[in-house]
């Protein structure tokens, strides 16, 4: 079965959800889906659909890269780690020294998001450094 057929429910869901800049293409036996979701719930929904088609993501035939759109005006983000504190580092990378921590659920100030993976933040205590963006949820 062609990959585009296997993942049709997913691409249909992406279209229905209004994913911006949606791009779906197959290359060397792998389907690549890129796009931007309006919010985190939309992104999570697509991942649930993906998990239904390919339980536990074991097939290795899809790379689903859907990011969440962030309004340029957004200035704060919430720490969405599972339960632990989020490390704030001197530079973008886990090899960088830890300069502070943000508590789970804490809302901190966004300083710069020019790096997709590491955002420059400032805590309410004034500590400034880089956090892993996947553990931050932009606040509308």
């Amino acid at each position, binding site marked *: 079965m062609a990959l585009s057929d296997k993942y049709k429910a997913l691409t249909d869901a992406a279209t229905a959800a209004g994913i911006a800049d949606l791009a779906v293409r197959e290359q060397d036996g792998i389907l690549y889906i890129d796009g931007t979701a309006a919010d985190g719930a939309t992104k999570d929904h697509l991942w649930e659909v993906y998990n239904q088609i390919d339980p536990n993501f*074991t097939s290795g035939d899809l790379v689903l890269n859907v*990011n969440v759109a962030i309004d340029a005006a957004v200035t704060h983000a919430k720490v969405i780690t599972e339960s632990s504190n989020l490390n704030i580092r001197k530079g973008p990378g886990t090899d960088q020294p830890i300069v502070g921590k943000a508590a789970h659920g804490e809302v901190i100030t966004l300083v710069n998001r020019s790096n997709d*993976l590491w955002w420059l933040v400032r805590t309410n205590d004034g500590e400034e450094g880089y956090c892993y963006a996947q553990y931050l949820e932009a606040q509308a």
Partner: protein
Amino acid sequence: MKTTKLLMSMVIATTLFFVGCKPNDAAIQAAIQAKEAAGITVAVAKGEVTLTGEVDDEATKAKAEEIAKAEKGVKAVINNLTVKPADVPVIIAEDSTLIKNVADATKDFPTVKAEVKDGVILLTGEIKKASLITLMQHLSALKPKKIDNKLTVK
């Protein structure tokens, strides 16, 4: 008699003149259609040509218009051709970048071992079902070629 002959020849000449100037629409249509690339539809009404269809690029679109304009009897060309949207290329991160980013992304999943080779992320070890989706989301954002998931899901 002489006048009648003259008038007759004038009428014939005039008719020929107009016919010569105005090849009919069907003939123009056929002539242009034969020269245009496949996928382009040519319609002609009163010497006005309309081009429709989808072409690969802007150059092909412009060329199609030139072909139509060059045809005798064409007064105007309405170019309604559309250009196919180009496929966004698949971007795959360099291994050096990917190795660093994968290390960052998997740091909080101590039971997961990740190796990167030629853009492929190989995952071994074990993971809780609830964490798997988070890990996969993190890794998929790093532009890998493939995620080879051999994790045991607990």
